[in-house]
């Protein structure tokens, strides 16, 4: 199942998953209309971006023996889709924009922390003033500056 994890590990944001599921649908349609690896490569390149086409091609090419067995490939892709769908989402509320690298680092950190593959959903909230707020499976963790200040100020 390493081939499945490869694709999943590339997922960081919720949008990435939606993109992957969309790509899986495209690939599933493509594999039934090709009869060689070259044709598959061309079909993927035609439907996906170059990098994504390469990833999918490399991923599927590992199953050379059955590359033309659409049912097996579909099964693999469906497994990937299912796993991707089941990934838990951590919503991160941030007061400022962070770079993709920084968000990836955050994703890595949270993945290690929760000890499971997760997806990030980034929501910008300038009102937090600083720090961040997290939500995972209905559990909220408010580590924002405004929350800290509000705790010090008596509430109305």
């Amino acid at each position, binding site marked *: 199942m390493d081939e499945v994890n490869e694709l999943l590990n590339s997922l960081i944001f919720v949008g990435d998953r939606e993109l992957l599921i969309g790509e899986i649908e495209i690939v599933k349609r493509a594999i039934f209309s090709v009869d060689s690896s070259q044709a598959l490569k061309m079909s993927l390149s035609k439907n996906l971006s170059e990098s994504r086409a390469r990833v999918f091609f490399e991923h599927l090419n590992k199953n050379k023996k059955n590359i033309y067995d659409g049912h097996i490939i579909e099964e693999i892709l469906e497994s990937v889709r299912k796993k991707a769908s089941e990934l838990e989402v*951590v919503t991160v509320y*941030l*007061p*400022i924009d*962070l770079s993709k690298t*920084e968000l990836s680092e*955050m994703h890595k*950190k*949270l993945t290690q*922390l*929760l*000890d499971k593959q997760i997806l990030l959903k980034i929501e910008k909230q*300038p*009102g937090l*003033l*600083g*720090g*961040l707020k*997290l939500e*995972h*499976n*209905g*559990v909220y*963790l408010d*580590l924002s*500056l*405004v929350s800290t*200040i509000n705790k010090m*100020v*008596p*509430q*109305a």
Partner: protein
Amino acid sequence: MFLAIFVLGLITVYSYFVVKREFGLSQYEKRSKKKIDAHLENVINSSELVLNDSVRRMKQLLSQTNHFNIAIESQARTAFTEFKGRYEASLGSELEAVEKQYEEEFYAQMKKLKALLDTRLKGQMSRSDKLVEEFTKSEFERVKKEIEEYEKHQEEKSAQKLQMIFSKVLEDVVKKSLSIEDQKKLIWSSLETIKKESLSDKK
């Protein structure tokens, strides 16, 4: 015969009146008259004596009667005075007894009345105390509640003001005080403080 008797009778009556006219009062009548006169005189004298004696006795009796009357009157007065004294003394004693009885009765009634009034007063005082206590308690609770509400209201007001001040100035102050780098440091330091349990599904 009858006629003879009748004529004889007439002759007798005629003879009587003739004799009487001729001879006046007989000696017998004169003596009798004299005796009668003497007797009458004696009678008159003795009657006068008797009368005088009777008058004297009457006078004496009258005098005695007066004396008796005076004595009776005196006795009666004395008796009346004594009776009056005794009656007054008795009346005074009875009056005193009655007064005493009335006084005792009065004090007894007063005592009863006092006891009744005391009981009522005590009951009233108890009720009053209870009412005062309830009133004080309710007033205390009400005032306490009002104070608490006022304090709460003041706290809320203060908090609202503070919040308003904070909401107005905080964002500007923080944004001006914190650079992007500071913000990022805050985000990473916050991330460092997260523990696995704090984000786990508590369900």
